[in-house]
């Protein structure tokens, strides 16, 4: 099993979810996050007081899948979340040691 973590632009979430559903991904976890990379933050001004925010809002998606389709998951996310501009995000793939469905106690692939 693999854990695919994708940091994407918030407005790309729906497209990414649809793309993953199409290739059979049955679930995901989504978190609103902030961070920085190559994309510069914005400058906010309130009555002349300037604050530059270097943390940019992003969406983090976590998907656990069979190792066999991990590459297709990565491709689907990469295609759906791409705008061609700086700040499109990153994808990380990690090995997963164990999975358990809390309701039934099923483990690993049957738990996904």
């Amino acid at each position, binding site marked *: 099993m693999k854990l695919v973590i994708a940091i994407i632009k918030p407005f790309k979430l729906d497209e990414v979810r649809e793309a993953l559903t199409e290739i059979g991904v049955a679930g995901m976890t989504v978190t609103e996050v902030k961070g920085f990379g190559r994309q510069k933050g914005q400058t906010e001004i309130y009555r002349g*007081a300037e604050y530059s925010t270097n943390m940019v809002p992003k969406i983090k998606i976590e998907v656990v899948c069979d190792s066999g389709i991990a590459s297709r998951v990565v491709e689907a996310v990469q295609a759906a979340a791409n705008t061609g501009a700086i700040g499109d995000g990153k994808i990380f793939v990690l090995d997963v040691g164990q999975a358990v469905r809390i309701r039934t106690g099923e483990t690993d692939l049957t738990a996904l």
Partner: protein
Amino acid sequence: MMGDIMKNRLKLIAGAGLGLFAALPAWAQDAAAAAPVATVDKGDTAWMMTSTVLVLMMILPGLALFYGGLVRTKNMLSVMTQIGAVAALAMLIWVMYGYSVAFGPDVTNATLSNFVSGFGKAFLAGVTPASQAATFTAGVEIPEYVFISFQMTFAAITVALVLGSVVERIKFSAVMVFAAVWLTITYLPIAHMVWAASGYFFKAGALDFAGGTVVHINAGVSALVLAILLGKRVGFPAERMAPHSLTLTMVGTGLLWVGWFGFNAGSALEANGSAALAMINTFVATASAGLFWMLAEKLSGHKGSALGFCSGIIAGLVAVTPAAGNSGPFGAIVLGAVASIICFFAVTVIKPKLGYDDSLDAFGIHGVGGIIGAIGTAVVYAPSLGGPGAADYDMGAKLLVQFEAVGVTILWAAVGTAIAFFVAKALTGGRVTKEVELEGLDLGEHGERAYNY
């Protein structure tokens, strides 16, 4: 003779009160000529009752939301609570002795009567449902309880406005002590000087239709002095202190604007043409100021902002307050635009250079806008500029009176604020501890959080 002062606020006559005419020479002649039988009009009374609660709405929730939205999440409740609590305190002080000291019977010492009234109406002694207060029309009066209530809301909002410069760090107990002392030694004398028939500036013919001097210059200058004495917030100006909800600030701005019709048009004391003039000016000066602030932002190379719009709205309302019934609509539009642009530079350029922490720009908007409004009123009052002044209106002489009123108010407010601050500091310590300031005053001072998601 009456032309100059008839737009001023108060000629108070208690009850049928003909005996008091002796104390009001200008009116005594008028009364002798017209021999009016004072009547109370139900329309005027209904309008003044409505105006009074409109001003209350400016405080809660208007100002509370406007100021509250501008602070950080952790201090939201403390700001709203301080505003509500000082307003409530002002109401009680007002009926105990405030009304009497500002608008009560004259003291016998002629010099002193320029600055305060006596305690003859302390605890509203002698006031009954049948008591009446004069308006600007001979023979037309309103119930004195309505006049007392209307003026009460002005005292309440003025002290609440001051707090804008010291939020996020002042102790609740310090706020309450400061408010009690400040109302007594600053607000009451200035209200008397400008609006009471025996007041120094009233007699001099100063123009202040609805409180540009008494409310806004007074509150703004006091706010500046208080902010300097109390010191900056921890981390100011390096740390991010962005408004936590400009949505609520915009809501508060709307409530303030609507309530301001009670403040300005209500200051005519009657439901008549003067109130109508104040009403239209409160629309158009404000509209002009809101747009001109955004224009100033754009011309300074920034984006026109929601906070800029709200700030302009308030600057326009402040500036048109003394001019509301003392200007034509187009004079008011120009006044709103000028005040907005100058306030914009005061808060975005001058304040950062001077480095003081007037946290919500109570001075930059109410103080500066109030001064522009008070001086500008002498200009837009001119009949040649569409104002309601008489044909022989002497702008130069009136400007001198306005400058004098502004100068005395600034000095009086600064000294009164300093005294009130040191009393409050001696009794309460003044500031919260650094730990409370960092954690937020909501938890540290009130044991609550504004938002529990």
